[in-house]
């Protein structure tokens, strides 16, 4: 692929603008959050072109935004954010992605590294056994058609009602684990067939479960409120989404949107950006189906969190409560949400597409839990498998500049093929074990595709958004045990 030659205007050390006149048809300029050092690989990958393409979406407001972990996606870049006016704007399934509500949930514990490390192999084996993972894996929960409909409408609460978790978990989950407007009537038979057996499974690919140790605390006050009190404290990170259900919802609705673009006379530079007006039958149907998939993912992470607690309880012989296994937070990384934002001094309702981006609401915002009102919404940024993850909080600057959004992870740097050519799955395990990380995986084959070398360093990504002020870093944790499907 040829290097991208367009103009990037430097606004400051961490923000770069693609002028609106770069390409005829752009409705707003592009804005990329990145350090100068990151720009070259973005140009090599042509990602700024995708940022410019997103600016074609009817009703887009402000900027077509890109986070520093941006990488080449299909249609939308991964790490892209676009807000559209709900009155005359569009919703685009490509702006959410196939893995609807792929996201992360973080649990804290009162355990310290010294207690867990001697038993990490045992713990990892127990987690691997207790949390269904891998391709073709089927859940431990059996869901019939009627139950599936309830799950799609209720989200995480569906699992809590079945005794998997508590009301407190819902308090610290984005949207309380249930996106409004879910309508199972908008779900195809195919999505149901694909999703039903996979409910309550971790999946494979870049999805993982990590037992982590807090390595650094940047803001002890905020960290304390989040339940992170000391270096060496053990945390658990769950990273998964809506599995085959969400993929099918996206596929089904992209097909509909493909036809909608000509119906509504929408002109786009890439078919994968297919969209429809939010206030159209196609747009409404997609949002109702997407909400089902988002809820499926929240139910999924809720079930998995419960089995994680069970596993810890078995190994350490204490109840999850006694082990202090409270949920810190749960965030979506791939989602479209109707939110209120201030644009040109006016409060309006917009549809914020976050594809590989995290909501980053500030202290005092009405949509964040009471317990975090003082500090802002927790932002969870996992690194690649086996490196490090960050905990941050949302800021006012994110509200005024990035539609309440920030980065979501490391961002891929090497293609899967290149990753595989440079390293073997078995070597990845060895490298991780050399660094004191115990790994258990269902497939050594795709382990190489997820090796650290394939990703940008998440530290640099988090530093950029921290410096740019769209989220503020609070703590950093490193893995001790990894379970990968």
């Amino acid at each position, binding site marked *: 692929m040829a290097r991208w030659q367009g103009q990037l205007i430097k606004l400051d050390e961490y923000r770069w603008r693609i002028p609106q006149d770069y390409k005829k048809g752009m409705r707003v300029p592009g804005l990329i959050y990145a350090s100068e050092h990151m720009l070259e690989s973005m140009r090599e*990958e042509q990602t700024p072109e995708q940022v410019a393409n997103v600016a074609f979406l009817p009703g887009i407001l402000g900027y077509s935004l890109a986070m520093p972990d941006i*990488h*080449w*996606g*299909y*249609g939308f870049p*991964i790490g892209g954010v676009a807000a559209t006016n709900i009155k005359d704007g569009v919703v685009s399934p490509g702006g959410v*992605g*196939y*893995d609807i509500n792929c996201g992360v949930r973080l649990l804290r514990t009162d355990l310290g590294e010294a207690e867990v490390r001697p038993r990490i192999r045992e713990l990892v084996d127990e987690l691997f056994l207790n949390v269904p993972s891998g*391709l*073709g894996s089927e859940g431990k929960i059996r869901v019939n058609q009627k139950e599936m409909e309830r799950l799609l409408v209720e989200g995480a609460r569906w699992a809590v009602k079945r005794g998997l978790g508590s009301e407190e978990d819902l308090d610290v989950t984005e949207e309380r684990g249930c996106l409004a407007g879910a309508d199972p009537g908008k779900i195809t038979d*195919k999505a149901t*067939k*694909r999703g039903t*057996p996979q409910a309550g499974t971790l*999946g*494979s*690919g870049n999805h993982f479960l990590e037992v982590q140790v807090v390595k650094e605390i940047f803001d002890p006050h905020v960290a304390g409120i989040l339940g992170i009190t000391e270096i060496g404290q053990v945390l658990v990170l769950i990273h998964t989404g809506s599995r*085959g259900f969400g*993929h*099918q919802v*996206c*596929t089904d609705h*992209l*097909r509909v949107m*493909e*036809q909608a673009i000509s119906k509504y006379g929408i002109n786009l530079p*890439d*078919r*994968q950006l*297919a969209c429809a007006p939010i206030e159209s039958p196609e747009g409404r149907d997609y949002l109702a189906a997407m909400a089902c998939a988002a809820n499926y993912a929240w139910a999924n992470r809720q079930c998995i969190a419960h089995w994680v607690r069970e596993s810890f309880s078995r190994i350490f012989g204490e109840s999850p409560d006694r082990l202090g296994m409270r949920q810190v937070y749960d965030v979506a990384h791939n989602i479209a949400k109707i939110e209120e934002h201030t644009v040109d001094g006016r409060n309006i309702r917009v549809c914020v597409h976050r594809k590989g981006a995290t909501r980053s609401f500030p202290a005092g915002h009405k949509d964040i839990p009471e317990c975090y009102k003082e500090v802002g919404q927790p932002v969870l940024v996992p690194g690649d498998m086996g490196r490090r993850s960050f905990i941050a909080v949302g800021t006012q600057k994110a509200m005024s500049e990035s539609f309440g959004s920030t980065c979501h992870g490391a961002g*891929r*740097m*090497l*293609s*899967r*093929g*290149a990753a595989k050519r440079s390293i073997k799955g078995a070597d990845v395990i060895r490298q991780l074990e050399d660094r004191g990380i115990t790994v258990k995986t269902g*497939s050594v*084959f*795709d382990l190489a*595709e997820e090796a650290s070398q394939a990703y940008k360093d998440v530290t640099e990504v988090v530093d950029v958004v921290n410096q740019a002020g769209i989220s503020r870093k609070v703590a950093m944790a490193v893995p001790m045990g990894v379970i990968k499907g």
Partner: protein
Amino acid sequence: MQKSFEILDHTADIGIIAYGTDIKQLFSNAALALFSLITELESINEKLHFKLQVRSQDRDSLLVEWLNELIYLFDAKHVLIRRCDIEDLGYDELKATCHGEAFDPRKHEIKRGIKAATYHMLKLDRNDGGYRAQVILDI
């Protein structure tokens, strides 16, 4: 002999390039390229035989829909496909008989899951030797 398919390597995803002396062969080879990404084609026996019918709005979309139908078959029904006979292929509809077997974890090593075939950078061209198509997959 002309090769039947190639794998295209991209940063976040994987693509396939399929070839065919005619359009039917192109669609058939695209299916093989897809399953070669999921497992070793040689490990799949032809034990199951079934018919598929796919409709779409145009030829390009039909290719995407066809691959999405196969992805669905694997993900929902755990069927691996070794060979496809495309019996009928119009501008927006195809009929095929597929041959393969059910996934058996003792026999088939699954390399990776595939979420969907996308419209991104989708290309279907005719050249002197026949047809060539490119499809990017989300994995």
